[in-house]
């Protein structure tokens, strides 16, 4: 990751002598020889952002030369010359001003890999987001081609760049955005945006059934890349619970279910059932209680489970919503129809089926589209959740839960007898069911697209308020990791030598410190856990800065010896 430290120029004087360029640091008294590009960077450093500096100089110098120049100067700053680390000032944002968000459009390439509902949700989400934020995307048109036009709510910022310009979009994202909204599920290019310092990123990851096989990996990768300002948005509470179960820190994971559009309810279940029966040419929808199954199963296991479920409940008419099985499950049991919304037309009739339901069942697992469940609930359908965790808060009070098991490999298990019994019982008219149905209707109405968009914007605002972690200032003498010969044992082991204090230090402590300069605490944790070592706890600086005894003293000074032993860990243990 990029260094996230900012620097300010100290009082200095630039001059040329004998064709050489120099800068004098008037505070430390150092005179530093600099090259042409560093000279120009210094002239701009105080008043311009890195981005502006590079944009101005890129005609004249190679990009890498400019970047290296900036890096060299900032390295000097780290060592105490010329630049001073600046304390970050959190800018107070004007409440009325819309945040300007960058929405890279890589995700549009994924259109064919994802299901229709998900693409629709994304489109709707952007449309509603445009009410609260200014949305912009980047385009890099070729010289011959015309600029890409704005589409819908998203403005296109055309970047004219020479063909030889190898700079990628993240660089341009550094300039002028309050946040970056990432929607891509494949992470192909999106991860590079995480290198940008100080811009909060909200990354939405769908529980798409088709991408289930890579979903966990995607989530874990995004978690790894996140900084303290960033938010990973998942669309259902069980996704977050899943990550927590895997031991991932979910501090920056937020659940924002997709909002739903409520169409006029026909408010006549019997009519809806008739329509459904007619459309599928199956009279069971008027003859039997209608149970919806919003499925997110792994397809092969899902097909098997659905037949088992259908056989165990022959008295039910089962409407399955499954984006994968609709095409692939050729001969489902008699009492089952499988449907999914694949285009505008099929999407338009879904509400009819949802209104025909007496109960909506769903496994609370990755792949299950919560938005379809919520939509059914919005029509006053109570729900039955097959869940591994507690009752998902999104549907709490709107139905019953049956404990289920599923694992990371798509296996799903639920005691079928218990499930069937619970369903039969629930379908009996009761006050509880009526209450739940009313509540379902009420609670689902809260999941509007507008609310979802507002929650997203809120994640950006909250991210912007989190101060970037101030790295502890590194000492002027970085630690030297080296082998150390122990004459008393005749063995060699690894240690750390500190120049300033001329003593050896604990390897783990120093390694954690060095890694923390570039990596998040979670990442550092991962490294130590991998090697099955406890990450050293740093209570305060004094625990490891210590009062160092020079190396030679350690040999003769008993106090020194004790100190040294305390400071080191013996790995053989």
């Amino acid at each position, binding site marked *: *990751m990029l260094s996230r430290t900012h620097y300010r120029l100290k*009082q200095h*004087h630039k*001059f040329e*002598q*004998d064709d050489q360029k*120099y800068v*004098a*640091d*008037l505070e430390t*008294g*150092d*005179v*530093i*020889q600099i090259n042409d590009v560093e000279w120009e960077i210094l002239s701009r450093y105080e008043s311009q952002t890195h981005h502006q500096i590079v944009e101005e100089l890129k005609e004249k110098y190679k*990009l890498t030369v400019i*970047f290296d120049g900036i890096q060299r100067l900032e390295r000097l700053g780290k060592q105490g010359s010329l630049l001073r680390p600046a304390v970050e000032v959190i800018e107070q944002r004007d409440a009325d001003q819309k945040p300007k968000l960058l929405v890279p459009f890589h995700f549009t390439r994924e259109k064919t890999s994802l299901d229709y509902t998900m693409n629709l949700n994304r489109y709707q989400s952007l449309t509603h987001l445009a009410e609260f934020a200014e949305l912009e995307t980047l385009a890099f048109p070729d010289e011959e081609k015309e600029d890409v036009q704005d589409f819908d709510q998203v403005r296109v910022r055309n970047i004219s760049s020479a063909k030889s310009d*190898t*700079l990628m979009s993240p660089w341009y994202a550094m300039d002028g955005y309050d946040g970056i909204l990432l929607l891509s599920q494949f992470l*192909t290019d999106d*991860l*590079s945006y995480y*290198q940008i310092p100080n811009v909060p990123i909200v990354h939405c990851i769908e529980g798409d059934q088709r991408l289930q096989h890579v979903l966990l990996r995607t989530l*874990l*990768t995004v*978690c*790894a890349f996140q900084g303290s300002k960033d938010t990973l948005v998942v669309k259902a509470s069980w996704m977050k619970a899943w990550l927590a179960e*895997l031991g991932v820190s979910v501090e920056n994971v937020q659940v924002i279910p997709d909002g739903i559009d409520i169409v006029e309810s026909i408010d006549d279940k019997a009519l809806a059932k008739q329509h459904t029966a007619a459309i599928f040419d199956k009279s069971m929808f008027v003859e039997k209680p209608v149970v919806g199954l919003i499925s997110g199963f792994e397809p092969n296991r899902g097909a098997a489970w659905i037949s088992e479920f259908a056989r165990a409940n022959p008295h039910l008419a089962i409407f399955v919503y499954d984006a994968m099985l609709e095409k692939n499950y050729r001969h489902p049991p008699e009492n089952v129809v499988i449907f999914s919304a694949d285009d505008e037309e099929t999407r338009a009739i879904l509400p009819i089926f949802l209104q025909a339901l007496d109960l909506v069942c769903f496994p609370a697992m990755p792949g299950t589209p919560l938005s379809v469940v919520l939509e059914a609930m919005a029509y006053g359908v109570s729900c039955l959740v097959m869940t591994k965790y507690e009752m998902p808060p999104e549907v709490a009070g709107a139905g019953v839960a049956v404990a289920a098991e599923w694992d*990371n490999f798509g296996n799903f298990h639920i005691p079928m007898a218990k499930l069937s019994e619970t369903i039969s019982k629930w379908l009996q008219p009761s006050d509880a069911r009526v209450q739940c149905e009313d509540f379902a209707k009420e609670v689902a109405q809260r999941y509007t697209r507008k609310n979802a968009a507002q929650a997203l914007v809120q994640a950006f605002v909250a991210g912007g308020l989190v101060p970037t972690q101030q790295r502890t200032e590194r000492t002027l*003498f*970085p630690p*030297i*990791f*080296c*082998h*150390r*010969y*122990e*004459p008393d044992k*005749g063995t*060699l*082991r690894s240690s750390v*030598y500190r*120049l300033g204090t*001329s003593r050896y230090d604990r*390897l783990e402590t120093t*390694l954690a410190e*060095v*890694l923390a*300069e*570039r*990596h*998040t605490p979670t*990442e550092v944790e*991962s*490294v130590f856990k*991998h090697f099955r*070592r406890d990450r050293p706890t740093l209570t305060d600086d004094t625990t490891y800065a210590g009062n160092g005894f020079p*190396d*030679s003293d350690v040999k003769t000074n008993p106090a020194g010896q004790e100190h040294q032993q305390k400071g080191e860990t013996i790995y053989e243990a």
Partner: protein
Amino acid sequence: MLGFPKILHQLHLFEEEGVPYAADLDKARVVELSAVMTDILKLAETQTDDAIVETLSASYEEDDISEAFERFAELEREGLLFNRGEDLERSLATESKWRKLLVIIPGIDVDSFFDIETLSAGTNMALAHMITHLTKYADLHFASSRNRKITDGVYEVDIGIRDLVRLRSKIGETYYGILTLHQEREQWLFPLYRYPEFPPILVQNHAPRGHGGQAINSMLRHYAAMRDCDGFTAPSDYVRDFYADYVWDPSFFNTLPNGVDSTLFKPMDKAAAKREVAEGVGDDRIEVVPTIGYLSRVQSEKGASVYLKLAELNPHLIFLIAGPNMGRYASRKLPDNLVYVGFHPREKLPLIYNAFDVYCFMSMSGEETFGLTVLEAMACGIPPIVPNFDGVPSVVGDTGLIADAENFDQDIATFVSYPCPVDFSRKINLLLGNDEMYQELSQMARERAVLFTWDKTASRIVRIFEELHQKRKLANPNRLLNVFAPTQPSEDDEQQELKYRSIVLSMNAHYERCLMRDAVYPLRVEEGLVLSILKEHTTREAEAILAALIPDETQARTTLKRVQGLIDGTA
């Protein structure tokens, strides 16, 4: 008074917010001035103290002028503003087109290198020879506190240890390399390793162990911290092999054998030599009885005690000792056949060697790596007998005899070996009892010794610097980005072991793509760790970390190589 006119350093005078400053480019320092100081500086190179006072008295108070003089005196003591010593055409002399080497050996008077008589320690003597011959290949600038021409191509330059880091750009432009000597407790060298501007730094390393492991540890620290384009010299392949047990990359140790002046050290009329020594000490047994020689400081670590035992075991031979004095042995009752022949100036040494029939080298010291005297004796055609210990047998080759020695795996109070007196004794008698073998070895010893020339040593140094320059050109920035993450659980039990992974991004720090296709490549945590460490630390430091974290060393070494390959391949 200051003694104006003075030669000024290369200065740049400027004002910032009304305050006058002088940037001293020779010292890379800025000095705050006052108005009067600025005016004095303008006159400093042409006028005397009095003239300056007179010129300026019209515009300044006398007190101000004398205060300025005091301040200048302080600055001069710090080595600022004014040239110290001779005017070497802007101190970093550029009169010659030769490659210039900066020699930094704190604590040793430069003159002593050019007056070998003043040196007694073998290390310094070797260094002096090396330096003298090096002048044939490069100009030598000794970092010191004044400017002075010592001889053609050899200068002292006013570059203090503390100036080095600040002057790095200038040093990088001016010098082809920095030659220095590994000294155990020194710290000044470490900061230099951090700057790419410096030319290659070659650290002469003479003692591989000793001082209770401290010599090794100091060397290990340098090994870890130095840049890829820096290196050590080691006096023999043995030393290089010795380090191979401690480090993963012994290529940082470049063998640099010592030499011998074979025109000075040469076979002479043996009878005459013996006669002269016999007359010198008044002992005519030397002329008639076979003689064994010892030339060193008379100290136990140099094997003096063992030598005494040899004398006791062999009453039929004369054992000669040449050294500064008899040290603690002076007060002992010495065997009758042991004769101290005194301490002799260098030009007399060939005569002393020639008075020996056999040369015994018995050092047991952990600091012995080469044995310069062995080579000198060989050059004089004296077959040596040396213990089978450290680098010495490699000097002798098959031109002398190797006696048994008990070698210790760790040094004990600087002793790392005990040469076996019985075997030494046996070998001495074997050699003296077989004239044919003696003659053959004597001739071979001379032939072998003449191969070791100081000129070769010096040219080898230049060649090592050339190699280091090549390495420097190949140094790569490490721009790859990686993050650490928990990995996806797997059904495979073995995979389950790997709970974490590292991910390398195909974008580098400048948002340029440098790997094909996907943005993310999963790596093992070990590899990611090395990638991160190599951002600010050396490969040798990563080596130390991997050695601590990965129990299997082969696996650890492969990991390091693999990541280094990736960095080299993408840079």
